[in-house]
């Protein structure tokens, strides 16, 4: 199902793209809805798409024997899911499962790369968006390492 432009126009993530650039992004994306429990990808699988969550929640996990799947991070509305398509070997480092009814824009990352190659101005803006999202994720992960909420006693 194609993406209504109103969905993309409302995303803070894409606010620095022009309407035309968002329309180009919509052209390589589709809307999907997922029920809780849906497995989006597994560690080691081919990473050929990414998601922008519009509503709902997806958990990223890692298999840790004997604990099973350990949740590392959740992805909520307005956030980007999936980085491993950016660099070789294009395999997922973690897994992801939908935990509440979720609606997401699913981006064909091969087509997205082609778009960026064909239109360097768009490619540059997309790179900034990805760096910004990665930076936020990295900084938040570092802050969690501080364990700020622990009881000092």
């Amino acid at each position, binding site marked *: 199902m194609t993406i209504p432009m109103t969905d993309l126009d*409302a995303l*803070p*993530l894409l606010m620095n793209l022009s309407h035309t650039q968002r329309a180009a992004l919509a052209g390589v994306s589709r809307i999907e809805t997922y029920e809780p429990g849906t497995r989006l990808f597994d560690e080691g699988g081919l990473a050929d798409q990414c998601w922008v969550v519009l509503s709902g*929640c997806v*958990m990223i996990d890692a298999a840790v024997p004997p604990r*099973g799947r350990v*949740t*590392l*991070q*959740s992805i*909520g*509305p*307005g*956030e980007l899911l999936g980085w491993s398509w950016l660099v070789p070997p294009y395999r997922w480092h973690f897994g992801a499962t939908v*935990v*509440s009814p979720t609606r997401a824009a699913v981006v064909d990352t091969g087509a997205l790369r082609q778009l960026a190659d064909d239109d360097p101005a768009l490619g540059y803006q997309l790179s900034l968006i990805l760096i910004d999202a990665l930076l*936020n*994720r990295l*900084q*938040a*992960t570092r*802050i*969690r390492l*501080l*364990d*700020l*909420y*622990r*009881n*000092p*006693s």
Partner: protein
Amino acid sequence: MTWTPTPYRVATRTVETHDTVTLALRPVAESLPAFLPGQFAMIYAHGVGEIPISISAIPGDGTLVHTIRAVGAVSKALHDAEPGTVLGVRGPFGTAWRLDGVEDLLVVAGGIGLAPLRPVLGHPSKHTLLIAGARTPQDLLYQAELTQLSDVDTVLTVDHGDDDWQGRVGFVTEPLASVPLDPERTTALLCGPEPMMRFCARTLLGRGVPAERIQVSLERNMQCGAGLCGHCQLGPLLLCREGPVTGYPVAEPLLLAKEL
């Protein structure tokens, strides 16, 4: 102002988490003046000592409600106080959250920092969004109450989830960076560990929320409550009198000081 603690009796003791309780205190005889959201009391555990504790609810009938985490000797004594125990209370002290003219209210809390913000969740606004973080699902305060707040959109997030946790896993800055908000109409109230408030304020500034509409709650070693003893000094501020609630333009350089 009286320097003598006013006797209050523990009416109820509600266990919130493994190390945190909420005490409802009723006056034994004389009552203290009404508290505003953000203000604090000096609460005295007889024979142990006195510490500052923010008001965590304002029922309006003279009851004082405080949420206390057992960290040191005094907070442990207060945490362990059973109903019927008489405590000494001084206050109200300090500045309150400034809520005049608020349109969209954004409340960001971390850990025990949710307690001083709890009274503002009922404040009338066009839209109220609460983002609250904790270490684990078991450490989240007021969970049942938060899920029943009909007029407040709530995002709960923890550093480490478990098998039963269906909320978010991550730091509060992550939903803060992506939730819909109108920076021109948003007033943000932040309370939690100081690094958390710094990072949240920076995220909000990046989203265009003016520093003048960001408030933080700062804490130091409050003792006298009247700005006389100087124990709570943070740079130019005596926080027991000029805090704990402080505008971010004033707080920002103080939050970056390595030692004060």
